[in-house]
C-alpha cells in the first residue's frame, strides 16, 4: 500500500459502512433526527415574501469551477423552484458556467412539472450571463436594478463575486440566503446576508430538504467522520502532550 494511506483507506471503508447502514435505516422508515438549519427553513419564508410583494426570486451558483457545492445547491434549487411553482412566483436563475445552464433548465423544468405547472415554466428566466466573473457580476447587478427580486439565494461555489452579489442584494432590500463550502467567502456572506449555510450545512441541504435515504445516509456518515476527527484530536493531544508519538505514527502508516 502507498505509505500514509492505510488510515485513509480504513476511514473510507468505515465511511461506506456507516453510509449504507443509515441509508438502510431510513429506507426501513426508522426515525432519525437532523438539527434545524435556519437558512434552509427560511427558503419558504423568502419565497412567501416574493409572492406577497409580487417580485421574483433570484438564485445563483457563482463562477467557480463545477464542484460538489453545485451538486449540493441543485437540491436547494429544485426545492425552491417547486415552492415557486406552487405559489406562482417567478424564479430567475443566473449561471456563469455554460455546462451548468442545461442542468439548471432541466432541474427547474422538472420542479415545475412535478407541481403540475409546466406551462408556467419560463425558459427566459434561466439566464446564462457570462463565464467571465466581472461580466457575470454586472449582469446580476442589472437584473437586480431592473427586476428587483425580493429574495436572493446565493448557494454554490464562489470567487470574489460573493461580496458584490450580497451587497447589491442588500442594497435593493432583498432577503438573502447564502451558502458555500468555500471557507474564504463565508465571512462575506455572514456579514451581508440574513442567513448563511456554513461549510457542510450546504452539503446537508439535500438530506434536510428531501429526507431521501441516500442523502441522509451520507449526512450521518459525515457526522461519523466528524466524531472520529474529534476523538482523534482529543486522544492525539493528550498522547502528544505526554510525549507519545504512537497515534501520529499510526496515522502516517
Amino acid at each position, binding site marked *: 500500500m502507498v505509505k*500514509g494511506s492505510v488510515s485513509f483507506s480504513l476511514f473510507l471503508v468505515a465511511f461506506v459502512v456507516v453510509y449504507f447502514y443509515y441509508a438502510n435505516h431510513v429506507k426501513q422508515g426508522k426515525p432519525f433526527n437532523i438539527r434545524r438549519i435556519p437558512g434552509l427553513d427560511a427558503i419558504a419564508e423568502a419565497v412567501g415574501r416574493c409572492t406577497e410583494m409580487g417580485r421574483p426570486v433570484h438564485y445563483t451558483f457563482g463562477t*467557480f*469551477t463545477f464542484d460538489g457545492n453545485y451538486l449540493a445547491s441543485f437540491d436547494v434549487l429544485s426545492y425552491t423552484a417547486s415552492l415557486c411553482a406552487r405559489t406562482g412566483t417567478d424564479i430567475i436563475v443566473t449561471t456563469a458556467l455554460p455546462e451548468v445552464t442545461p442542468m439548471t433548465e432541466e432541474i427547474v423544468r422538472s420542479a415545475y412539472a412535478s407541481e403540475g405547472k409546466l406551462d408556467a415554466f419560463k425558459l427566459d428566466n434561466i439566464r446564462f450571463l457570462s463565464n467571465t*466573473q*466581472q461580466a457575470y457580476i454586472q449582469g446580476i447587478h442589472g437584473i437586480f436594478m431592473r427586476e428587483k427580486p425580493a429574495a436572493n439565494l446565493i448557494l454554490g461555489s464562489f*470567487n*470574489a463575486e460573493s461580496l458584490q452579489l450580497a451587497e447589491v442584494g*442588500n*442594497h435593493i*432590500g432583498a432577503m438573502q440566503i447564502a451558502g458555500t463550502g*468555500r*471557507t*474564504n*467567502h463565508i*465571512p*462575506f456572506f455572514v456579514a451581508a446576508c440574513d442567513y448563511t449555510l456554513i461549510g457542510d450545512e450546504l452539503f446537508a441541504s439535500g438530506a434536510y430538504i428531501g429526507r431521501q435515504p441516500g442523502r441522509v445516509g451520507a449526512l450521518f456518515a459525515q457526522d461519523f467522520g466528524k466524531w472520529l476527527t474529534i476523538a482523534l484530536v482529543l486522544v492525539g493531544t493528550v498522547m502528544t502532550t505526554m510525549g507519545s508519538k504512537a497515534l501520529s505514527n499510526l496515522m502516517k502508516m
Partner: protein
Amino acid sequence: MNPELATKLQNIDRRIIYAVLFITLAIPMLKPLGLPVNITSWTKAAYETIDAIPSGKVVLFTASFGPSQAAENQPMGIAVMTHLIRKKVKVVLDPTGAEALPYMMVYANMCKAAGYKEGEDYIVLSYLAGEESVFAAIGKDIKSLYASQPKSPLWDSIKDVTDFALMLDSSGGPSNRYALAHIGGPKKVKIIALIVGNLLTVLQPYYSAGQLAGIISALSGAAEYETLAKAPGAALSGMDAQSLGHLWVIFLIVVGNIAYYSSKKTGTRGGASR
C-alpha cells in the same frame, strides 16, 4: 445624542461613504505618506526560506491569478523574482491559470533583463487546463505532463518535482491547496503561497502546522516582502492608501456603534439600512 442624528449616523448615504473612501485612497497615491510597514511572521518565514536557497538551484513558480488579483499578486511576484534573480536562482515559470501567462511573461522579461539565458537559467512552460488535475499530474510526473516542452539544459536537469528546491504558488483561488495536497504533502516539496488577502485565514492553519514554508498575503504582504528584500515597488506605495482606507472603515464602524447605542438608550430604533 440627538435621536435624529443617531438615526442619520446609522444610515449614512452610501454615496458619502464611497466618496470619502475614494478620497482617502486617492490622496496617498498622489502624495505618498511613507507610513511604516509591520513585518508579519509568515512573510518573514517566506523571505528566510527563499534567502536560504543556494545559488544555481531551481525553483518552480506557478501562477493562476488574473487581472482581478494582479493588484495584490503581481507586486509580490515581482519582489520575489527580484530576490531570486539577485541570488542567481534558476526559475521554471508555469502558468496554471488561463489569465496568468501575461504576468509570467513579465517575470520572464525580468530574467532576460538581468542577463538570464532562456533554457539555461529560466524557462516558461505552456499553460495546461485542468486546475487540480494539473497539480496532481505535476506531483506524479511533471516530465510526462509537459512532454511537448522543448529540450533545454534547465528542463533536462529536472527529472521529478522533487528536484525543485522550492515551489512558489501565486493565486487568488484554491491552487495553493492543490499544490499542498499533491506536491507538498506526498512529495515533501517546500511550498510558499503568494495569495490575496481573503485566503490568509484559509491557509494560516497550514502554515501553523508547518505544511507551508511561508505565506505572502495581500498588498501588505507584498509591501513587507519589498521591505525585507529591499526592492521597493508598487506595494509599498499602495500601502499608504490601504492604511488610510482601513482607518476610514474603522471610523465608520465606531460612529455607527456610538449612534446605535445612543438610539438604544433613547428607545428609538435606527437600524442598519437595507
